[in-house]
């Protein structure tokens, strides 16, 4: 078995509002809000790295768990925006936590990366001990803040999230998960030559079908209805997409925790940042099931179900 023990996050302090961004990309601030639900996003400082953001989220998570880095059996770091491909940010996160022998592995997947990390951790924790899953991104360096890059520049922000998956105890038990990949559609969303390339309409078309389907299949095989779920913690891609997922599942939108207005789309970090903020606001024991879901470049998508411990 595996349990969710704690979440953590870090957001760089610099806020970039729609009013600041809009003139650069030739857009109206109100239009940005309308098409995305985003009011502002955070940008990393020049000397920040994906790993340095990840370390701060990891430290926040360990502090909330009352755990030390030395207890970790493994670290998994998801990122689509790391500065260096090999070795990726996982080794630097481990080093930043003072670890010199704990295995630290990269998941070079953007938006779905932390969901993949949680799913792998759920299987690995029984073997290796507590697994720290980190999603960290500096997407502001992967967008083009010009009119040509408008469609991506308005969406993305920077940040990091973390989750400690423990084999013995936590506030919720990971009951099941599902992951899928369709590489035939890889061209609709990718990071190429250090820039995000996105066919946004095709991404939305794919996501609005695949996310509800993955969630429904996962719930069905666990005899849980969509109405039974206490909270849906989704990758914060776009407010309109999250609303479509809620409609597709026939679930009231207020079951979905949403923070995209102030953080933008932080890719692999977003679901764990959302989870951390949700948990901080709801620290009591979990009674109703929790559903995580993400969709992103690859294309990769899936869902994870956690239930009261």
């Amino acid at each position: 078995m595996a349990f969710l023990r704690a979440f953590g996050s870090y957001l760089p302090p610099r806020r970039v509002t729609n009013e600041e961004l809009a003139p650069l990309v030739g857009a109206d601030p109100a239009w940005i809000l309308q098409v995305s639900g985003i009011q502002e996003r955070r940008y990393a400082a020049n000397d920040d790295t994906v790993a340095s953001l990840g370390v701060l989220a990891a430290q926040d998570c360990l502090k909330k768990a009352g755990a030390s880095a030395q207890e970790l059996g493994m670290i998994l770091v998801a990122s689509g925006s790391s500065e260096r491909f090999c070795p990726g940010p996982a080794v630097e996160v481990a080093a930043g936590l003072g670890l010199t022998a704990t295995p630290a592995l990269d998941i070079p997947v953007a938006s779905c990366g932390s969901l993949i990390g949680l799913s792998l951790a759920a299987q690995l924790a029984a073997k290796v001990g507590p697994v720290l899953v980190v999603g960290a991104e500096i997407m502001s360096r992967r967008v083009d803040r010009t009119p040509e890059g408008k469609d991506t520049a308005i969406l993305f922000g920077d940040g990091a999230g973390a989750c400690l998956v423990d084999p013995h105890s936590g506030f919720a038990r990971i009951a099941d998960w599902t992951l899928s990949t369709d590489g035939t559609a890889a061209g609709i969303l990718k990071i190429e030559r250090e820039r995000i390339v996105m066919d946004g309409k095709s991404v939305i078309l794919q996501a609005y079908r695949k996310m509800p389907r993955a969630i429904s299949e996962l719930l069905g095989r666990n005899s849980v209805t969509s109405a039974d779920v206490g909270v849906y913690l989704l990758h914060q891609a776009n407010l309109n997409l999250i609303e479509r997922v809620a409609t597709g599942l026939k679930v009231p939108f207020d079951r979905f925790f949403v923070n995209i207005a102030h953080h933008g789309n932080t890719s692999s970090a977003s679901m764990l940042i959302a989870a951390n903020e949700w948990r901080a606001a709801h620290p009591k024991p979990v009674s109703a099931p929790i559903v995580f879901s993400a969709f992103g470049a690859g294309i990769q998508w899936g869902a994870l179900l956690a239930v009261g411990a």
Partner: protein
Amino acid sequence: METEARILKVLQSIKGTTLNPGADESLFESGLLDSFALTDFVSGLEGEFGITIPDSDLSARKFDTIRKVAAYVTAKAS
């Protein structure tokens, strides 16, 4: 009703107004369909024509003009 007229009916039900785009006019560039209206359009086409559009066909460029959509739904319906 002809295929193109039925496609227009779906489009008009989404937009809530009378529309008459040219057969080769881009529904995206003209502002008639944004990303999220496109999801409604695709679902509406499935209902109107009694077809199931598979994930492998969920590419925006297939639904960019009335003529492309007509060719697609005709092929699917046959």
